[in-house]
């Protein structure tokens, strides 16, 4: 089935079998392997991407459903080799151990920052409840998110492009 959408600013036009999931098309057809498949059962959030500005699990969405959508994956965050403030924050605060969940954690962080809300610690943790880290590195992930918020503010730039 003919499916057209925009990924990280580039238009794509594909012939996709309806049963294929968005995550597999991103990875296998478009080579965007930064989006990971962890559990493949809509639990872990390693496959988190933004569809029309909202963070979703791309293993629970058919690729054909993305027709006409604007998609942002982890590959779309850096610009000209310069890391996005959210990515820099994860580096600075060691918001990763094995790194498998990291693309999902970063995309969720990006989406949360785009909402420009002031959450307290408990609320931030709740917002990350769809992303699992099996290294149990949550403390540094939350610290990275807070750091990203500060970086975005200090630099006065728009977090969300």
């Amino acid at each position: 089935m003919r499916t057209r959408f925009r990924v990280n600013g580039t238009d794509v036009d594909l012939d996709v079998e309806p049963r294929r999931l968005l995550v597999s098309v991103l990875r296998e057809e478009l080579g965007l392997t930064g989006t990971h498949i962890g559990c493949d059962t809509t639990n872990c959030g390693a496959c988190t991407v933004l569809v029309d500005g909202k963070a979703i699990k791309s293993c629970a969405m058919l690729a054909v459903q993305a027709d006409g959508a604007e998609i942002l994956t982890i590959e779309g965050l850096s610009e000209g080799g310069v890391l996005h403030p959210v990515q820099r924050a994860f580096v600075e605060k060691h918001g990763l151990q094995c790194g498998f969940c990291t693309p999902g954690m970063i995309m969720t962080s990006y989406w949360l920052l785009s909402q420009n809300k002031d959450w307290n610690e408990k609320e931030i943790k709740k917002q990350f409840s769809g992303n699992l880290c099996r290294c149990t590195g949550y403390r540094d992930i939350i610290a990275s998110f807070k750091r990203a918020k500060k970086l975005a503010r200090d630099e006065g730039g728009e977090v969300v492009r």
Partner: protein
Amino acid sequence: MYPKSFDYFSPKSLGEALDLLGTDPEVKILAGGQSLIPSLKLRALSVKGLVDITGIKELCYVRQEGHVLKIGALTTVAFLENDQTVTSSLPIMREAAEQIADPLVRNRGTIGGNLSHADPVNDLPAVTLALNSSMVAISKQGTRRMGGDSFFAEASHTALTPEEILIEVEIPVQEGRVGSAYRKVRKGSGGFSIAGVASCLSVANDGTIAQCRIAMTAVAPKVLRAENAEQTLLGKMPTDSVLDRAAELAVRASRASSDLNASREYRRSILHTLVKESVSASYERAAAQ
């Protein structure tokens, strides 16, 4: 894992969608897909075709008309959690919405899907049932309204026919000393409900409970009213012994079973506590009006 192959349709209007339905019972409606797609992937379910209604933008709305809050079937759970109209008139809705799965799932999951899927662990059936809501369905024959008692007909099945689409939920918003609340316990963050209790009640001038509806999640093969518990609360103040009695009756009405998430005994014990907490919270909200 990939689902089995199926045909995919993405109608842009209700008329187009209705044309695609009803010819084959193995053609199902796809909304947010947060239960359906995982089930297809696990091959717990297979379909010949999916009619993806998410392109029908006219089914995504919340509006208050008089004393009725009307919610379009494609309204996402995330929207219910954050929308001012919903959360100011029905705090129970936010309470239930923010406890469903996780924020990423809530960005796609819809109220219509949560209700139509009618899984006994889904939370919104109990909420709509406690709030005495009506489900509005459309087919080529016209529209019909169903109360929760008839809509949630049997385990994991609604009264919807294969030709019908759930388009709207109508929730009565009563004025005066009315309050509602949802309490649940789930297995881990983002996990399924072990038990949940939605309640809605009104308080008379003398402080006694005048009206009451209680509905329970995950303690039977389908969402269940606790009618004996409702009856016992009428005309009484919610003292600890009255609440205990109501909780006992609710537990007796339940048909809780053991599964991977909880044993039957644990579920019943959690249910007892949740009935008391939910009714107390509803009462406090009503009395504060």
